[in-house]
Every structure is written in C-alpha cells, then in structure tokens.
C-alpha cells in the first residue's frame, strides 16, 4: 500500500514539475474555524530544489493519463511512460500530513485530461471541497482550471481555491497550432476571462455585503514555454503584457523549454534549456510591472530581442543616454527607479532621505545602491566633475569589465563566432 503511494507520488510529481508556478502569495485566508493552516500574504518557500527553484506547494497531478497529444508535454498520449492516478483521499491525506509537518505551504493540483474536461474538473473540485469542508483546511490551494470545463464547475472551484491558472503554453497562436493542433488560445482566454469577471463581481459584492465568500483571492496566473518555437522576445512580452492588462493576471511565468522528445519541430534532446533568456524575460516582466516601464520602451521593432550580456534596464538606459545623468537629489521617484543599479527599495529610501539633506556618495552606498553601476547615470553633491561625455558602448564596456555574469560558466545556446 505504502509502496504504491510512493510510486504514484514519484510519477505524478515528476509529471507536474514542468509547471513552474509555485508562488503561495496573495491569499489572506484566515484560520478562524480552528482548523489547519492559513494564507501568508507574501507566501513562504519551504525549501528549494537542487536546480534552485522554490518548493512552496505540493505540486502534483491528479493523473497523468491524458487524451491530448501536445508535442511539448511529457504526459502526451503518444509518450510511452508509466501512468498513474491518485484517489481523492490520497491527495487529501498527503496534503494534510505534509502541511502539519510544515513541509509545504499548500497544494498545487493539476491534472491530465481524462475522458473530458468536465469529468476532470469535477474530480479536482472533489479534492478541494474535501480539504476545505471535511478537513477544515485553510492553507493555500492553487488549482488548474481545465479549459472547456463548464462555468458552474469553475465558479464552484473558485470558491475553494486561492489561485487558479491556465497555461497559454506557447506565446503565439501559430506556435501553439504547430505543436498542439487540437488546442487554441481561445480555449484559454475564455475561462481566464470568465474567472476574472467573477473575481470582479465578488469584489463588488463584498463592498456591499461583508460576508461575501472569498473568490480566488490570490488571482490568476498563466505560463508560457520559451524556446520550443521560434518566437522573438518582443512577441513573448507583448503577449504577456496583453494578458496582464486584459485579465488582470497576477503573474505570467516563462518556462525555458527542456527537451523531452525527439520531435523534429522542437530543439533536440540534450539541448541546454535557455536559462539566460528566461532570466532576461523575468527581468523585463519586473520592469513592466513594478518599475513603470512601458513594454514598448524595452522591446520594439528596432530591438525585437533582449540583450544577453546586459540586463534590460541597463540596455534601456544605454539607448536613452539623453535622460542621464539624473540628479538624485531633485529627480522624481519614477526617474530614480529607472537608474541602473538602483532598485525599488533604494529609490524609496533615497526619496525619503533627501528631505533631510542632500545626499552624498557614501550615503548612497550605505542605502544599498549598486554604486559602480549607478555612477555612470547619476549626480549627487560630491560627484566628481567630469569633462568628457562617455558614449553608450564605453559605459557598457566599463560595466561589463567590472562585473562577471553568473551565466558565463554555463554554456549558452549562442555560439561565439570570433
């Protein structure tokens, strides 16, 4: 019995690991029925795998049986792998016992599609209902919305889950059609839109009626596979931007494609996953969401790809040297945030501290500014006077000379010609 569960857990955790979403933030569910667990606003990562990704949720599939045959997925119908399925009770027991030992922050439940969408969604719903109602479990639950499931089932699931997500898989419709002819972006957009409208509706009701139940308090997210199909960074980020805007998504995840099959439409087995590209896309994502950048400033027709040797914020600054140097003692907060080497918390501190006197270089360093990078773009009261203006490529060379990329040791997909 025990061995069977071990085996199932191994198979179904292995199949679920390519879904990179693991955040447990955004839910403030209280433990007010003296049950087990609560939401933690900023989320908690309980451990990290050897690849450095956080493990915050018990991430498993209910089953890896699937009627679809998507080329990028390990659980595709034509793939010859071991198949398994958990019973509802097994998932509930695993979650409760892991949670009690503080191993996990909650459950991330996904599933291959067996029989049809409604049948699968109904099973997922049974698990979360049992956890919430019978076991008085108030911890985090991230539930996959199954595209094509009926609206009643999705709405009911939303009452128990903290976050729901559906993966876009490929950044463009053309890419998706190439690898998964049976699927389409419309299948994803419809339920995303439905859940988003429900969230807004429940929020409005909450303003009038205080005890309106929570509905997906941690919002929705999605994921795109990067590097399986030949999209540009611009296409990827424009899609992400549109989804952030249209469906108020909390997160878009970018997952570097890890070759899992000999399919000729995709990178061959043994190719390094595009880790650096993934990193740059996340940096762009952050600039877009927290630093007030418009995606068109970073990626446009002249620059369809992100630089690999420098981060997107620095490359924006180098392309727009006419904005610099910025005097940090008078510049508005929005401009200070755009200086390479100054992050959000340093920018906040600078804006507060300068009310008490103009800032010097040593104070900036104490505040946490990466001064060696920022010095090319800022002015403060003891900035040394400088006669010549450096060109963008000179500044870039200075910065690259004194910093070592953490990616240099790992092989990149790009070969050097000279």
């Amino acid at each position, binding site marked *: 019995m025990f061995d069977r569960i071990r085996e199932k857990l191994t198979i179904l955790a292995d199949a679920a690991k390519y879904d990179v979403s693991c955040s447990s933030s955004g839910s403030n569910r209280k433990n007010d029925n*003296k049950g*087990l667990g609560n939401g933690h606003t900023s989320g908690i990562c*309980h451990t*990290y795998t050897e690849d450095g990704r*956080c493990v915050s949720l018990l991430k498993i599939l209910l089953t890896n049986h699937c009627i679809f045959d998507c080329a990028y997925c390990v659980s595709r119908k034509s793939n010859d792998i071991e198949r398994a399925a958990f019973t509802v009770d097994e998932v509930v027991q695993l979650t409760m016992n892991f949670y009690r030992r503080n*191993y996990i922050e909650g459950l991330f439940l996904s599933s291959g599609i067996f029989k049809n969408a409604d049948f699968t969604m109904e099973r997922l719903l049974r698990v979360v209902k049992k956890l919430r109602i019978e076991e008085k479990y108030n911890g985090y639950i991230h539930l996959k919305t199954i595209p094509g499931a009926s609206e009643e089932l999705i709405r009911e699931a939303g009452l128990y889950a903290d976050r729901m997500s559906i993966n876009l898989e490929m950044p463009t419709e053309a890419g998706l059609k190439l690898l998964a002819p049976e699927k389409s972006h419309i299948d994803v957009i419809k339920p995303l839109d439905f859940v988003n409208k429900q969230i807004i509706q429940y929020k409005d009701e909450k303003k009038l009626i205080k005890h309106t139940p929570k509905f997906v308090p941690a919002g929705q997210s999605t994921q795109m596979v990067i590097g399986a199909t030949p999209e540009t960074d611009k296409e990827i980020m424009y899609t992400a931007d549109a989804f952030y805007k249209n469906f108020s998504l909390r997160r878009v995840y970018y997952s570097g494609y890890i070759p899992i099959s000999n399919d000729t439409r995709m990178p061959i087995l043994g190719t390094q996953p595009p880790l650096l590209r993934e990193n740059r896309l996340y940096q762009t994502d952050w600039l877009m969401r927290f630093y007030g950048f418009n995606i068109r400033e970073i990626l446009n027709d002249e620059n369809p790809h992100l630089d690999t040797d420098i981060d997107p914020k620095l490359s924006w600054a180098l392309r727009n040297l006419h904005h610099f140097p910025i005097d940090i003692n008078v510049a508005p907060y929005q401009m200070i945030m755009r200086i390479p080497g100054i992050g959000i918390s340093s920018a906040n501190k600078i804006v507060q501290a300068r009310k*008490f*006197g103009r800032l010097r270089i040593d*104070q900036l360093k104490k505040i946490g500014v990466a001064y060696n990078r920022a010095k090319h773009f800022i002015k403060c009261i003891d900035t040394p006077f400088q006669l010549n203006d450096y060109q963008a490529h000179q500044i870039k060379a200075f910065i690259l000379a004194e910093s070592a990329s953490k990616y240099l040791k790992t092989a990149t997909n790009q070969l050097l010609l000279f």
Partner: protein
Amino acid sequence: MIYLFNGSLEGLLTAVFEWFERKPGEITLILEENHQPDAFKKTLTIYNNREKADRVWNGLLIRLDKNWIRRLYCAYLSEIPAAFNHIFHFTCYLFQSKAGVEKNYGNPHVIAISKYAKSVEREKHRMEAFIRFEEAKDGTFYCGIDPDFNVLPLILKHFKDRYADQQWIIYDLNRNYGLYYNLEIVENIYINVSNKRNSSIPMDPKEKLYATLWKDYFKSTNIEARKNTKLHIQHVPKRYWRYLTEKQVELI
C-alpha cells in the same frame, strides 16, 4: 563616556532616560558582560528602572508608527552588541529632532537599524519556512531550532494561527527556552535534558513514512537539466540543512 547595561530592553530604555537626565555628551552603550575597564573613560552602570523605561517606550510609541516600533524591536532581538548601541543613539536622535526623522536614511543609526531589522526578519522568515515538525507518540509536533537571532517571539503568532488544531513545541536549543501550544494558548517552556534534538523523543510510527514520502517528492520535483547548486545554496544556506527533513541522508 561609557554606559553599561545588562542587555535587557528595559535596561536599554532606562539608559536613554539617564542620558537625557544628565546629557553627558558622547557616550557608548556597552553590555556589562563585555566591558573591559578603561583608564581614561568614565563609566556609569545603568540599573533597570521600569518607570523610566516605560516613559521612554511611551515616547517612542507616540513618535514612531507600528512598522518602526517593530523594526526597533527586531533590531533589539538581534542581540548584537553593536545593534544595542545603534538603538540607543537612534532613540536619542529621535527625541532630539523634529517628527519624521526616522525616515532619514542618510543617518548612520537609521540605516543600521533598518539593516539589523532586515536580518532578523529574514531569519524569522527562514524559521517559518525551514522548521520541520516531527510527530511524537503523544501527538505533539516537535522541532528544535538554533536560530542566529532570538526569533521565537516573532514567529509565535504565525505558528499559533496556522497550527491551531495540533499541539506543538518549538524549542530554541541555544537560548534554552521554547514555545508550547496546548490548543488554547502558547506558553514558554524550559526543558531540562541534555539531548534536546529530536532523536531522544519517541516518534509516531507514521512519522518515518511521511518523511520518506517527502524526500521522494523532493527528489522527483527536481529538474536535472537545470541543476544550479550555487543558487540552491544561496536560497538554503548549509547551516539550515540540519533542520530539513529532505536534506537528511537515509540511514539504512
């Protein structure tokens, strides 16, 4: 001049009061036990005085918002001698200046306090993440920890709210006190045995089973092709590995 105090928050606040009463100019606040007598400097030993400490504390409550009070408290819990001195000077600076001066990040004491507070909050967050309970025979969940800073008072609420339906003990092995939740309230406890690591307590038979399942899960959720040991260690520094069930080697 040197002020000596005994390391308690009350003593620290009393020191602030004494300074304002005497105004002796530049002083350094030093822990009594760390003090090396010095031929050239005068010293004054501060004796705890609840009344004086309360007056200073109430003054702080008026001047600082909730977040800053917490930062100050966190910096105190770091138990680093230099942090005490910074808290002392920060408090004096605060009472001598106009309102809002705690936001002056150009001031060395302000920035020092926010750094100490950040370290303590980080340790607190790590404890919330890395504590692994083991179920004892009597159904109590136990974990022994030895955090860098005294974070038990900070993690109390988190664990009380979260594990409301199970009895648990979190024991600070270094500072030799712990928290015990008896399904109603959390109490301070002192255990008087030499071996407080989990091995001395009879464990529930299910415990091993779930530990094995968790280790299996940890292994199978890893993606070999993305191996990145540097990042792994950055997130889970090696000194925390002893807590982590998934990092224990299987003894067969």
